[in-house]
């Protein structure tokens, strides 16, 4: 054994051992170690892509491909944002505009509704253009989360006997 190499010992449950055996078979790896290292390389590659703001899609053709969301990768991707930040909230997980009590989606949804460009949105909300460009990229990449949080809010208001739709019509 090379002096620079180290032996790694860890316990595996029977289920974990089976997972590794399956991975080794699927990857046609010559050893469990090779299978693990190839899986690590793949995970690192995907993480690099997501960290750069790229999205992952799966499908048989570009027209039918659907976005693949891997929560572990998405959460790590937050490190890429310069103008957006996480804030503690009981159930919201989308990001906020740094230094402002303003959800990224508030700016984006308003811009979408009114057909505004990032530049127009920046003027409308007194934000730097770069911040608005980032908000647009983030919200486009997290449409499902934003929609889920809109639905969650409606559900909570409904539980509290507030009819938002009726209020909006009056």
């Amino acid at each position, binding site marked *: 054994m090379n002096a620079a190499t180290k032996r790694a010992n860890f316990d595996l449950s029977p289920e974990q051992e089976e997972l590794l055996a399956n991975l080794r078979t699927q990857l046609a790896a010559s050893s469990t170690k090779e299978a693990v290292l190839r899986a690590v390389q793949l995970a690192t590659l995907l993480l690099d892509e997501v960290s750069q703001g790229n999205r992952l899609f799966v499908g048989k053709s570009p027209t039918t491909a659907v976005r693949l969301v891997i929560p572990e990768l998405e959460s790590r991707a937050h490190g890429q944002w310069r103008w957006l930040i996480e804030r503690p909230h009981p159930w919201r997980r989308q990001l906020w505009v740094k230094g402002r009590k303003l959800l990224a989606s508030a700016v984006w949804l308003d811009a979408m509704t009114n057909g505004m460009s990032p530049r127009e949105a920046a*003027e409308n909300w007194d934000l730097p253009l770069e911040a608005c460009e980032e908000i647009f990229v983030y919200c486009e990449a997290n449409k499902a989360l934003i929609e889920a949080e809109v639905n969650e809010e409606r559900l909570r*208001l409904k539980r509290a006997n*507030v009819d938002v739709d009726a209020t909006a019509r009056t």
Partner: protein
Amino acid sequence: MDEDSQARSQLNVLRSDGHEVVTIGELEKNGTPDEEVFDLAQSLDRVVLTHNTEDFHIKPPRADI
């Protein structure tokens, strides 16, 4: 107007319709917690306009108003 609603376009529409509006930003209170925004509005005898429906809905009215 709460911080999540103080877009210039919205402000212009409300003011051109004759509403007397003041924003949290104009009061130099961006970043103020919801509770303080609510208390401030009550102390100024104003309505809070916000997108933050759920968080504000649970706030009880001040007893002396």
